[in-house]
């Protein structure tokens, strides 16, 4: 028994000439909840698929729950619960039929009882006869979670489990994740939501197939060495595009009725914002950069944010 649920080094995957995942190292201790973040197409799904034996890495080694990711995929599949990004249960089967199928494939003893208990735990009992295809996003996601924890896995790999799910359902989902984690499960969950990232013990940020930063949310923010000023005042939003090209400004965003202006070069940034300081109509204050500021910065490390972050595209 190693202390690491996931311990992989140098994972690499190519699709033709394109390198989708490039030398990824991830070490997740047992019992922790880790967030896996990064823009669309950065390689999150591909990495997760390599972890659970669905894709063969072109390079790299490592273990998942102590089993070799290359040669022991069968063992890994038995003990890992994998929730796909796209809903992948059988829409022409009812909730219960889907769960019973999964239970049979995993050769679970006392199948009926386990299915019933899982239905109960996720509040699916009343809907068990409903066809999966007729469920709304939130219920589909619950079914998927129920199915991937039915065989009592030791590690959950969840690929954007809350995409397209309403806030209430997202909250309940995370409460369930935390309950599972208290029971000793290790969880790696990919997401685009900042509030979800903040619910994780640690986060890993991947961009263009490479891990850019990792650590606790506070670590990630600190290590970004980003300085953020908040400006509020009458009609402040009109300055958004004007500020973008100014020296020291790496990224400007408007939320919470304030302009968030971020950059790493404090002196240049102060210089640029001088007019606001001198104008009594505007209030300017320095603030701790938010995770979102950091991610937008990470997404465009060498320049301006030319696109707004896409949430769940």
């Amino acid at each position, binding site marked *: 028994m190693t202390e690491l649920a996931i311990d992989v080094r140098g994972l690499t995957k190519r699709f033709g000439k394109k390198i989708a995942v490039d030398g990824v190292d991830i070490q997740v201790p047992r019992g922790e909840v880790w967030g896996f973040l990064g823009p669309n197409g950065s390689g999150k799904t591909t990495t997760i698929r390599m972890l659970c034996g669905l894709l063969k890495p072109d390079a790299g080694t490592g273990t998942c729950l102590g089993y070799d990711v290359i040669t022991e995929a069968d063992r890994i599949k038995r003990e890992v619960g994998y929730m796909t990004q796209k809903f992948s249960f059988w829409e022409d089967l009812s909730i219960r039929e889907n769960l019973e199928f999964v239970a049979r*494939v995993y050769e679970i003893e006392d199948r009926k009882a386990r299915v019933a208990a899982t239905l109960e735990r996720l509040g699916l009992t009343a809907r068990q006869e409903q066809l999966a295809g007729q469920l709304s996003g939130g219920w589909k996601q619950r079914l998927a979670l129920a199915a991937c924890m039915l065989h009592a896995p030791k590690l959950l790999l969840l690929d954007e489990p809350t995409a397209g799910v309403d806030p209430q359902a997202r909250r309940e989902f995370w409460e369930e994740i935390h309950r599972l984690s208290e029971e000793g499960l290790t969880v790696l969950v990919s997401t685009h939501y900042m509030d979800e990232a903040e619910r994780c013990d640690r986060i890993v940020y991947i961009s263009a197939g490479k891990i850019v930063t990792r650590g606790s949310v506070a670590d990630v923010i600190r290590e970004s060495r980003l300085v953020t000023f908040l400006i509020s005042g009458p009609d402040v939003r009109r300055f958004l595009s004007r500020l973008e090209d100014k020296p020291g400004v790496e990224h400007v965003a408007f939320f919470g009725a304030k302009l968030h202006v971020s950059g790493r070069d404090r002196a240049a940034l102060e210089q640029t914002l001088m007019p606001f300081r001198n104008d009594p109509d505007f209030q300017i204050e320095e603030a701790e950069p938010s995770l979102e500021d950091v991610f937008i910065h990470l997404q465009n490390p060498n320049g301006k944010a030319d696109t707004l972050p896409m949430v769940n595209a």
Partner: protein
Amino acid sequence: MRNGFSFRRMGAILIKEFVQMRRDRFTFSIMVMVPVMQLILFGFAINTDPKALPTAVHVADNGVYARSILAALKNSNYFDIRAEAATPEDGTQMLDEGDISFLVTIPANFTRDLVRGDSPQLLIEADATDPVAAANALAAVTALGTQALRDDLVGPLASRATKPAFTTVVHRLYNPEGITQYNIVPGLIGVILTMTMVMVTAMAMTRERERGTLENLLAMPSHPLEVMLGKIIPYVLVGYIQVTLVLLGARFIFDVPMVGSLVLLIGAIGVFIAANLALGFLFSTVAKTQLQAMQMTVFFLLPSILLSGFMFPFRGMPTWAQWLGEILPNTHFLRVVRGILLKGNGPADIWANIWPLFVFLLVIGTLAMLRYRRTLD
């Protein structure tokens, strides 16, 4: 592959397929409708025993017996004598152009030779491009030899009536091998099974891929053989339902004789179904979408209809086509079905056509297992 075969996991997939099949009423009803429709099309609409076929005669003899024979031809209902060919060449031309199906030639001195006991020849040239159409008419002609002249051969000639007084010479033109009757309906079993079994399995797997459920299936600990068997077995049962429908129709609507053992037939059908399902599974490992699976099925179905001996007599095809035909399961299966139903063949008789089915099953099944990928690569 580390984990061994598990009947429980196979059972899991089998149950899932049954439930999905039950939900998908449309596909199921199509699979029942196919045999019913084909029976109607091939059984009723396409008449395999046509009467009143256009006929020309070339009569070079004016004797009494020649006229009796012409009368007998008319009475058989198979021949509609439309034209008199002045010369044999005229008659041949009419055949060539498809104006007539038969040319009957009564040679000069027919009556004289017959009275002398020289057994003259009655020549019948048949357009056998559609051999099924010609077969019954030709069978009727052979009977004429003894019956047509029974009333005429009296007195001193009576002894001639016991054996054919003349010989009937039949030339099947354009297609030397005539197929026997009752061919089509038993053959339908092979065609229907080829069509539906290959298609349904090919689609069942590609459907998983297209709907994204394959990723889930692969993420679970399932062995390829379990998936293949679990998916195939429900459709074996569907195949037998189809066979039952066709056999019932053959027996009670078309009076097809069933001489041989039904148990043997059911066993042989099992091998044939398995061969087709394995092919469907192989297709499903190649096709990316259900549409592609469908196209591959049609691609395979065409030679199975055209080159198997279902549509055209096998021996009438060029050698290369026969070679192709020998590869197709349907070719061997048609011989088996016809052999059992019509000729009463036993296990030893059909073995020559059963082992090629096993070989096909083994080769295709192995290829399918090798191609079945356990990852998404």
